[in-house]
């Protein structure tokens, strides 16, 4: 493949941040199709518009997802990217890898693809970027037989579930995010590979309310770690923070580069508590846990003094999505607390998932995310379908309009009345 002049892209080789252009050029020495990637991208930079055709339905036998078809609209100019399909590979939970596995994947991709990847795609999969239709089946064969791994999701199915790194390296994780993520990904392989839903459906598992995997913003089904007892306090460590001990930097050292002055527990912790439930008394930090909403701020600031409670589990929020079409939605808090327990195969979470699916697959319209279905039918209806008793925690505030959809059985005597009888007493 010919080398193309890329004066515009060459400008992106300047500056301190690592350059994808430099990387692609170096790769082109052994994978010449990278020149055509650069060539077509240069054309897009010149004309300020994409040169990929709309869609393309390709895949491997028996799967309805995992491969995204892509074709160049200028294949004569750039034959190396005539077909440029994406392969989504399901990522290991928590995004840890052995180099042995990564090297095997790279050997596979050097053999069957463009040599270009994304680590990772937005939903969490490893993305292998650019291959030809005829390579898909051989690639899938080697992937499953030699590497013992599999494609992720695409289309109207369960998308590859994702999690934060959880308790593998984080002291705040309130449950084992990796274990449930991996376990449910395995349990629902059919739902990931064979589209049967009205639209996409995403699970995301965050270990605590800091929500590092953006579950509340991005997933139809968000499992976010929390606790139901009291924040654990180490009063001796509180004193170390107050004293400004170098081993106890505020916010775990996250502000080390700023001139913020000496740590001030009153200003930085107590006054910033959103529920005003903390105070100092007799030289000790006190917390009224009955008022606490478990926002994490005090724990974030003093990780050596404060820890989440010991009775841990998760809050389930349902229905987040990006703006297309009626606007973005965060997930709505539906279940305040569930146990996330491997011993019972995560029964408490699985029960909720399958109840949501049973209902949504029945009533969801084509290309309607579950959060949109919830909006269409209303939260009271959704709760009733889910057999969940409405509680004040489900809303930010009660409704301010009086237009309640009363049901007939709630009104004594029902709705059938006789207007003739009515008129005998009330002249028109």
């Amino acid at each position: 493949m010919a080398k193309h002049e890329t004066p515009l892209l060459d400008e992106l080789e300047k500056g301190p941040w690592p350059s994808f252009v430099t990387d692609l050029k170096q790769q082109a020495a052994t994978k010449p199709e990278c020149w055509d990637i650069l060539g077509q991208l240069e054309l897009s930079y010149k004309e300020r518009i994409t040169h990929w055709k709309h869609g393309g339905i390709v895949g491997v036998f028996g799967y309805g997802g995992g491969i995204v078809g892509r074709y160049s609209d200028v294949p004569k100019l750039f034959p190396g990217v005539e077909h440029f399909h994406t392969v989504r590979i399901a990522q290991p939970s928590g995004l840890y890898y052995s180099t042995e596995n990564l090297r095997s994947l790279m050997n596979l991709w050097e053999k069957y693809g463009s040599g270009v990847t994304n680590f990772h795609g937005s939903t969490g999969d490893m993305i292998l970027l650019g291959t030809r239709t005829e390579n898909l089946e051989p690639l899938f064969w080697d992937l499953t037989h030699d590497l013992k791994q599999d494609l992720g999701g695409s289309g109207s199915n369960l998308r590859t579930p994702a999690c934060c790194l959880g308790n593998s390296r984080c002291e705040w994780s309130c449950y084992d995010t990796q274990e449930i993520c991996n376990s449910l990904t395995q349990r629902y392989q059919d739902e990931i590979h064979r589209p049967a839903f009205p639209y996409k459906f995403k699970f995301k598992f965050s270990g605590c309310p800091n929500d590092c995997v953006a579950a509340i913003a991005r997933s139809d089904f968000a499992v976010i770690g929390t606790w139901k007892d009291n924040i654990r306090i180490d009063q001796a460590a509180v004193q170390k923070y107050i004293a400004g001990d170098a081993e106890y930097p505020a916010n775990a050292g996250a502000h080390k580069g700023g001139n913020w002055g000496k740590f001030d527990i009153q200003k930085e912790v107590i006054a910033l508590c959103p529920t005003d439930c903390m105070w100092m008394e007799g030289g000790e930090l006190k917390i009224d846990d009955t008022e606490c909403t478990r926002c994490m701020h005090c724990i974030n600031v003093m990780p050596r003094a404060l820890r989440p409670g010991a009775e841990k589990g998760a809050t389930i929020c349902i229905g987040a999505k990006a703006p297309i079409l009626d606007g973005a939605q965060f997930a709505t808090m539906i279940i305040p607390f569930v146990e996330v327990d491997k011993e019972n195969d995560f029964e408490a979470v699985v029960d909720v998932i399958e109840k949501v699916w049973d209902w949504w697959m029945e009533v969801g319209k084509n290309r309607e995310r579950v959060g949109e279905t919830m909006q269409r039918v209303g939260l009271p209806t959704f709760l009733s379908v889910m057999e969940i008793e409405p509680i004040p925690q489900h809303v930010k505030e009660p409704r301010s309009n009086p237009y309640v959809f009363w049901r007939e059985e709630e009104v004594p005597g029902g709705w059938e009345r006789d207007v003739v009888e009515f008129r005998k007493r009330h002249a028109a």
Partner: protein
Amino acid sequence: MGYDPKNPMVGRITDLGPRYYGDFLPPVIKANKGTWLYHEIVEPGVLMHVAENGAKVFTIRCGSPRVATVNYIRDICDIADKHCDGFLRFTTRNNIEFMVDSKDKVEPLKATIKSYGSKFPIGGTGACVTNIVHTQGWLHCHTPATDASGPVKAVMDDLFEYFGSMQLPAQVRIALACCLNMCGAVHASDIAILGIHRKPPMIDHARVTGVCEIPLAIASCPLGAVKPFKAIVNGEEVKSVKVNAERCMFCGNCYTMCPAMPLADPEGDGIAILVGGKVSNSKSAPKFSKLVVPFLPNNTPRWPEVVACVRQILVAYAKDAKKYERIGEWAERIGWEKFFEKTNLPFTEKSIDDYRLAYDTWRTTTQFKYTSHTAAYTK
């Protein structure tokens, strides 16, 4: 035996799922999973986690362009083989993390990382601008209104000093999505860079019936702007659609459903900037990003207007916000009228919502602050 095209179903293996995460944990992580006690950011880009038994893991975080070649991944494998027992991980924001089990292994690991020049910048921790989550753009996507990797590179070059330091009031999460489908989910980011279209779709009447389900194309429009239409192609009447351009909000959903309705355009497309979103529940509830700059041009190859705008917002925030305050929390405390004044961004009608639930954002109180915007009333 490899794949046999004549017998594609023989010996086929399916539904293996992902590799088991437990096989990929570094030994110190595997031994201490679930027993971590606390952590500290030792210096920008270097984390220390301490377990109940006193075991420690040191993590060095490096930025990456996310677009990574086979060569690039092999380079990071070389580093991990040399220093990290052959294990590494990635963060949800496309950073690479190398882990070692004692402090004396940190400097040798850093030295190896730095031997690659600027390829693996160390940082992305604490009160910084960490890596930009982004989408594919012109490199691979069929519906983009801008590129992704190019603007990200240009913005990160400009904000590089903030990646490797921790001098901001709080962490600043920047995200880029190259169209309104928002694969990058930028709707809850401190600063969102969003590709937008501004021209209604063209209708390729000759192709509509061949490639589209007309009822689905009509149903795809949230504003009912797509209607059935009988077009004349080569003297013959064909079933097609037409678009009421006055109703179009340029979401591109019709093009997603119908390839015969392309809307991308060099002059029409560009970038909108939204700010003040957050995902974390810390202090305040998660917030959506709000539109503060309706349009900046796709000025390739380095998007100078976008780069300058992001810096302008970041610098005003860094100067004025209180410790721990995210951009959205800062804007809410000072009031959005003050946000526009302090960032020196022009306020336009485009920032006033006139779509669904718009009324929720209109001001229905006499409480406001006097700024330059009210000068005409107060002079």
